[in-house]
């Protein structure tokens, strides 16, 4: 069986009267690549430090494979950490760094050599064993840190923004390598990042944190396409936020946005107005004056390589952002051009009604975010 199930129960850490982690409940399955995503200062590192044993929680419990480890010191937990700044020992060579944990565990000499060789091969550093950490590039140092933790075969591997110090290209390369590595070793990875793209490309599941609280947890597609809160919607990428009036209908309900009406499925929301979000890539632009669509003017064009982002303004001051792929099929448009905007009701996401209170109250009509 696979080890490495991590459960956090009501985890709380307060500094003074500020809660860095606030009643956090999480279950990470054994062998999962699990990301904790959130803005700076939301309590990601604190959570990881509690799991690693470097910070003791104010309240709450940490379980690994059903065992309560809350009070165990770091050296007695089957958890290893890849620190953000790598924390390699500067006075030891790469091999010695990797062997450090094995020595502490009093692993026999022969096995030690075998395991160090093995893990160095795994991270493609076989020929770098005798170098000092200072003689390595950032990416290589990163891999040493990884090897040093993995060689101990922890049940859970914690990674605190391990790629944040690297340039974009190196990052992408290591993202791929990390994912492969995870598949190979099968250990539970708990991966911290504030980069939503990184979290989405790498993870089996993502937990989104804000102010120490869990906002949503789920598969990347789930979190991206069905964000449950306003915060998640915005944090997971540019999204258009629309205020809609709820009208009754025979089946489902009708959302009225400006002059346009959309037949929505499901039971009607309780409140009279709701907030809907729609991804820019689901906003389709048509020629001027197509039937049934909203009509607006392009006020901004930004070319971002694979797509072009347009900002479309409508009467009554509302704007929407549209991402149109540069695939040669869609025509390129210019500022000032009049376009029709086509929205499908199934692309709308109803933002959890309890979140409405947090939304700015003064914009009566339609707001765009981005």
């Amino acid at each position, binding site marked *: 069986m696979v080890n490495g199930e991590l459960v956090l129960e009501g985890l709380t850490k307060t500094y003074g009267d500020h809660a860095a982690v606030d009643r956090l409940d999480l279950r990470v399955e054994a062998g999962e690549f699990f990301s904790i995503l959130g803005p700076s200062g939301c309590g990601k590192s604190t959570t990881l430090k509690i799991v690693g044993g470097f910070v003791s929680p104010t309240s709450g419990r940490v379980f690994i494979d059903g065992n309560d480890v809350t009070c165990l010191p770091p*050296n007695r937990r089957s958890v290893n950490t890849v620190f953000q700044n790598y924390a390699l020992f*500067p006075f030891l060579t790469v091999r010695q760094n990797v062997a450090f*944990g094995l020595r502490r565990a009093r692993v026999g000499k022969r096995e030690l050599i075998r395991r160090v060789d093995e893990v160095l091969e795994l991270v493609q550093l076989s020929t770098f064993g005798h170098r000092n950490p200072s003689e390595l590039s950032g990416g290589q140092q990163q891999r040493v840190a990884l090897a040093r933790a993995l060689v101990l075969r922890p049940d859970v591997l914690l990674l605190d923004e391990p790629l944040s110090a690297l340039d974009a290209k190196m990052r992408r390369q290591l993202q791929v390598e990390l994912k492969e590595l995870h598949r190979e070793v099968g250990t539970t990875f708990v991966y911290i990042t504030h980069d939503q793209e990184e979290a989405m490309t790498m993870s089996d599941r993502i937990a989104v944190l804000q102010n120490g609280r869990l906002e949503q947890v789920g598969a990347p597609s789930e979190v991206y396409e069905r964000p449950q809160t306003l915060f998640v919607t915005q944090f997971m990428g540019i999204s258009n936020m629309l205020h809609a009036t709820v009208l009754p209908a025979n089946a489902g309900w009708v959302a009225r946005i400006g002059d346009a009406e959309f037949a929505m499925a499901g039971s009607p929301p309780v409140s009279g107005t709701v907030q809907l979000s729609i991804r820019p890539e689901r906003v389709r632009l048509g020629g001027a004056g197509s039937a049934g669509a909203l009509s607006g003017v392009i006020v901004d064009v930004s070319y971002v390589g694979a797509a072009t982002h347009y900002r479309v303004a409508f009467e009554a001051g509302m704007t929407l952002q549209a991402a149109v792929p540069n695939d040669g099929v869609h025509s390129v448009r210019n500022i000032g051009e009049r376009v029709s905007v086509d929205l499908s009701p199934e692309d709308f996401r109803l933002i959890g009604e309890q979140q409405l209170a947090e939304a700015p109250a003064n914009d009566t009509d339609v707001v765009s975010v981005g």
Partner: protein
Amino acid sequence: MTTDSKRKGIRLPRPLAIFVWAYMVWNLLPVVAAMAFSFNATRSRSQWQGFSTQWWSGTPLSLFDNEEYTAALKHSLELAAMTTVISTVLGTLLALVVTRIRGVAKRPVNFILMIPIVTPELILAVGLYLSLTFITVWPFSVVELGTPAQVVGQVTYTVGFVVVIIRGRIAVLGDGLEAAARDLGAGPIAALVLVLFRLLMPAVLVGAMISFAFSIDNFVITQYLSSDSSTVSIPMYLYTNARGGNTTPALNALATVLVVTTLLAVALASLLYRWATRRESVASDVTGTVALSA
């Protein structure tokens, strides 16, 4: 990189350059002259009359053959050795403890640690002298004037510097590497010994050398806490005899020993620090300089 950019920096205006050079020469001249006359061929300490090593060794009046000189040399080295060892060990332990203090005690502790450094040496010396002479309570009663009091006095002064240097190093290192060691299975003691002590070594060496240089050079505290002629150090001997008419270039030789040992200690500290931290990143290079100039 830093040296490069300095070299490429603005050229000094000529008058300023001359002034800087003059200052350098002025700094070096008295010391070099004093040292040079230790090799004079005659008894004169002001007129050069040829080269000889007679004031260093070979005659009953030479530095290394005369009881008075060798006693002072020996005593100074003894004091320096003891002061160095004790203040380095104490300072390291103190620094380790002090950096772990959190909360209300932090500020007062920091302040008290600074007292010996900011107090004029003379006040400290007089204070120690009075305490050790007139207070009959332990531990003051057991420390007798002479070598024990001199070591106590010098350590009181130097330990503050050691603490400052080592604390600086601890602050720069952060607790990341210690945490990493714990994470990899080291217990608290193993992490301290295998990682923290190893990383502190350069700073400890610097602290030791600074203590040594201070002890060798020290006059005020050593003088106040001395007892009889057997506890005369090099600076004390120089002070009492340098202006007397009956002196020889052997005294210059004695002064030379003082200058050279001090310089060696400081140079060694700087070299050792660089050597021991050679594998660390640029960031700690900076702290090296900071620690040395502290």
